[in-house]
């Protein structure tokens, strides 16, 4: 059971990659990329968990309580922000690609293929 979080991360990564390769719509490709990225959230949080640890918020628990690793949680926050920005840029590119090629199918982007 202790391997389950890491197995979920590997599964998210691979299923997201499958989505990127198989999608026939750029929006879906971008959404699949966010699935790939969510694998990193699961890995980071899984690494930082310590058995029986509480959230690293000491507002209402004693200062000596055992808590999970706050460093990886900050890394996940950074990760989420980067994910949002990358998604925004890619969606903007998809909007312009649709204007130019009249299609969101990656196969139809002729200028990139020829």
């Amino acid at each position: 059971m202790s391997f389950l979080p890491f197995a979920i991360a590997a599964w998210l990564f691979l299923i997201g990659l499958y989505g990127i390769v198989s999608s026939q719509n750029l929006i879906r490709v971008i959404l699949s990329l966010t699935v790939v990225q969510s694998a990193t959230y699961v890995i980071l949080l899984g690494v930082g968990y310590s058995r029986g640890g509480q959230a690293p918020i000491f507002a209402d628990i004693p200062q000596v309580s055992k808590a999970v690793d706050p460093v990886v949680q900050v890394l996940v926050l950074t990760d989420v922000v980067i994910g949002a920005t990358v998604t925004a840029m890619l969606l903007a590119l998809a909007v312009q690609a649709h204007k130019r090629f009249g299609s969101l199918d990656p196969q139809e982007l002729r200028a990139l293929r020829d």
Partner: protein
Amino acid sequence: MTRRARLTMFGVGAAGLGVVLIYGLAGLPAFGDYEGVYGHVINGIGVSARHATDLVTALNFDFRAFDTLGEEFILFGSVLGVVLILRQLRGEQERPSLDEADQHAFAGASEALRVLALVLVPALLVLGVYIVVHGQITPGGGFQGGVILASGPLVLFLSGRYMRMRRLGPHTLVETGDAVGAAGFALIGLSGLIFAGAFFKNFLPFGIPGHLLSAGQIPLASVAVGLEVTGAFLVAWSEFLDQAILIRSRPPEAEQ
């Protein structure tokens, strides 16, 4: 390459990658057993060293503030990129009349939805401000609160009135908020350099842990980042909504 060939190739590659991935992940300490040194140190000294009770925010805006500066400018830069990519191209025009554009409402918005939006907007704004300023005490901070704040005007769009959303968050205002927030966070770092001798070293009194004005520079940094995130998300969203609602290709006879 045909779709079939591509999927076959991916299948072979993914199988190999999956094996390596599982092998590598199996080498990690078992779930719940990892004893991260830095995390232990922060959990041990965080509250007494920075007087903040939410150590995630303390890390974000104090211990790792320099990294957050980079993260913040990535957000700033990518929003700039979105604005650049979605600029008004040659042969496109924004519908000139506000009244005409106002008819481009989100179809299907009922009166009940509009009333609900009226209730939700102030509630979201209050919740956003609360999350931004309490980051040093309870879960929250500039990034989380900023996104909530930005969703306030977005609710106006969902209630069917895009132009109202633009009125609550006009382009100039949200762009200024984005820029002022980004600059403000960098200036907090510079103030540390000037008043405390090191970039992002705390230069404000720490106060009492658990109080609203505690933890030195953290609430200030949180407000700056909150402003930037609110601005950044509203700029990006309105660029996309402009594309969908306002920008039309110019009719051929209007050219030249």
